[in-house]
């Protein structure tokens, strides 16, 4: 109950702040139309009224709250359609992309991180640590551009395939995940019960994956919750660069066009994902960690 209230508070806060910021940003949807030689000021004023751009902020907000209640999340000025109908298909495409890369990056990060921790200071560990530093230091966008270029030049670029954007997103997410997995595992590896396990002769993969990894899960589960939270927001710019038909192009276009409610829509969607992601993280924590699940 308390969590739910907090989440609602958070969502309300985000929506109000977004409204204020968007209102503060100069220019409005019809700004560009002014340059259109075919439009007279009177037409513009009429359009402005039609799009309710002349309303005050609280009016807009209340108006929007009403539209949330009926599930439309406002009307896009540019598309003249309810924001929700624009959002869902693209959100699906985005989530398809991000979910694939999320699953993939965790599937890679878990064994690799454990491996790197198990062979601490081995060549593999050092190599990985250098590679993650380098990847971490490269902005996602530059990475996307470079990969796009390589893909185009070598001819494996196919616009409809997931390969390129997923590669970019996985490479962008891996360094952080790897580091967290490695450090969480190393943290646990230093615990007395791991020494105890070794004193019982438990070793090798069983020690690392059966004994250590479950105990190291807590910070990773929280991190996983955060990855879930990023399902909507993490890929927006990358999508634009590689041309993925997700929320990214829509959102950036909406920002540029000051399509008020179409900007608010994805923002709120990603906020909802954040809230849900964190909640799922906590829930997983509860399910996975008997210390939390079973109170003494």
């Amino acid at each position, binding site marked *: 109950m308390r969590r739910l209230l907090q989440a609602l508070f958070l969502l309300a806060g985000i929506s109000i702040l977004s409204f204020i910021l968007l209102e503060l940003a100069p220019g409005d949807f019809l700004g560009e139309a002014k340059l259109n030689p075919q439009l007279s000021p009177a037409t513009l004023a009429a359009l402005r009224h039609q799009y309710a751009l002349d309303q005050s902020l609280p009016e807009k907000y209340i108006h929007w709250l009403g539209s949330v209640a009926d599930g439309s999340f406002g009307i896009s000025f540019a598309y003249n359609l309810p924001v929700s109908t624009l959002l869902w298909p693209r959100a699906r495409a985005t989530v398809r992309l991000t979910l694939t890369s999320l699953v993939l990056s965790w599937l890679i990060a878990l064994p690799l991180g454990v491996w790197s921790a198990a062979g601490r200071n081995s060549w593999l560990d050092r190599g990985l640590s250098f590679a993650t530093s380098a990847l971490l230091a490269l902005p996602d966008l530059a990475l996307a551009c470079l990969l796009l270029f390589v893909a185009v030049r070598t001819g494996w670029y196919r616009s409809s395939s997931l390969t390129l954007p997923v590669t970019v997103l996985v490479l962008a997410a891996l360094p952080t995940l790897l580091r967290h997995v490695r450090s969480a595992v190393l943290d646990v590896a230093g615990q007395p019960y791991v020494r105890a396990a070794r*004193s*019982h002769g438990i070793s090798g993969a069983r020690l690392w994956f059966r004994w250590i990894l479950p105990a190291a899960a807590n910070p990773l589960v929280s991190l996983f919750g955060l990855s879930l939270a990023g399902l909507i927001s993490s890929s927006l710019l990358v999508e634009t660069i590689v041309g993925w038909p997700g929320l990214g192009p829509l959102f950036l276009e909406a920002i540029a066009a000051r399509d008020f409610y179409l900007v608010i829509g994805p923002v709120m969607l990603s906020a909802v994902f954040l809230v849900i992601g964190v909640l799922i993280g906590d829930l997983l924590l*509860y399910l996975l960690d008997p210390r939390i699940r079973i109170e003494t």
Partner: protein
Amino acid sequence: MSESTPGPLLHIQSLSAAYRVEGGYLPAVRNWNLLLGRGEVLGLLGESGCGKTTAALALMGLLPASAQVSGSVRFQGMELIGAGEAELEKIRGAQISFIPQEPLLSLNPVIRVVDQVAEVLRAHRRLSAAEYQDRARIALEHAGLKARDLQQAYPHQLSGGQRQRVLIAQAIVCGPALVIADEPTSALDPVSTREIVTLLLSLVRGLNASLVLITHDPRILSATADRVIVMHDGTIVEAGPAQEVLRSVRSPIRGLPVPADKPTDAGAAAVLGTRGVTKSYHRRSKLTARHEEVPAVRGVDLELQAGRTLAVVGPSGAGKSTLARLMAGLEKPDAGEILVDGRELGSRALHRRIQMIFQDPGASLNPRFTVAEALAEPLAVQGRRSNLAAMLQRVGLPENALSRRTSQLSGGQKARLAVARALAALSDRESPCVLILDESLASLDLSVKAQMIQLLMDLQRQRSLAYVLIAHDLSVAIHMADEVAVVSDGRIVERGSPRELQSLPHSRFSALAAAQALGKDV
């Protein structure tokens, strides 16, 4: 089980081990020689930090890679020092098993205990999944953990004794030839200690295995060990048959004079009193966000006159520490009042009259501070200056310690410093002061404990301090207290002089002990 090779089971020759520290090696085990026969029970006695655990880990090859180990350890004729990791893994848990200290920390918190036992088996035997479970269950039953739901529990759901039984089950499940038990009872109350040691002995005998029992408490060894070796600073200083060796090892505490009963001055005003003090804590469940009220102290009335010592004794979780904090003014009671000299005082002035020394005196010193800074802090808070060196001297610390960091002091030195600091804070020289000792001596080695008791008693005479002594058993209280209050479940259940309490009917005192045994570690 193992009758293959004749000769000693374990033969240790000039074993040394050293940890790498900045700029060199710190020797922890020096030049050990030892022969251990089959079925023998060997006691290894020594104070904490003398290298007992290191020696055990060294012979199993479990010291970190940075440590240096030399010498020879032959187990059933096989050399263990320098043996490959794969060979050692075959021996560990199967041939030599180890029962680690600190049962809670030594069990994986997220795996059911029966699986943790099965996992040991899995490392050494190829069986079907069901057999692993069955054998683990049998081992747990042997170790005295019979109930199904206890076997399926997670470590944090078990009591200290039960956890210890899990560790024992892990140690015996593969039927080893040698069991090394590292302080198996240090976290347990006397009743459980006796049970666990008996259990361990019988199991080891049943396996016809040898047992090395590492402990700092000679009392445990007297009834169990065939032979005892005494270790000090990494070297073996004494070795021989148990009874002989133990006779020479005496608890330093027993040497202390038991103080004569001070005359009770019935008319003297209490310097510290509590009246109906009550305190509960709120706990919030993580997921459901339900509030729970957990009462800690319920309506306690106490009185303490200047120059006297009151011991508050009870099992852990009984509310002793909360009571101590309330009396020290660190927390506010929900109901009731704390009286100093008959007046309820605001916290500021209170600090000059009442000070508390914490459960772990070391933890109450900021490790970043130098001794001088730590000592000067209460003075600075109260806007006074004083001669720090003299204060150190008073508690028996060298003057040159002032510039050292508190983290560099030994346990005993930290305790002394904590006392010195408390004294510095007790600035009111006109009226009597109170010092609250919250199990402050429990973590110290026996010899240091004895010195501290002596120091505290001297100080009491000099400054006519009143002490509130919080303890979970009577061992120290007997030597210091004028009066003992037994606390259970937030209430005072028994009061009297220490001698009266000792002579209580066994049933009543054992109720106390039982309460203690059940008390869960918080």
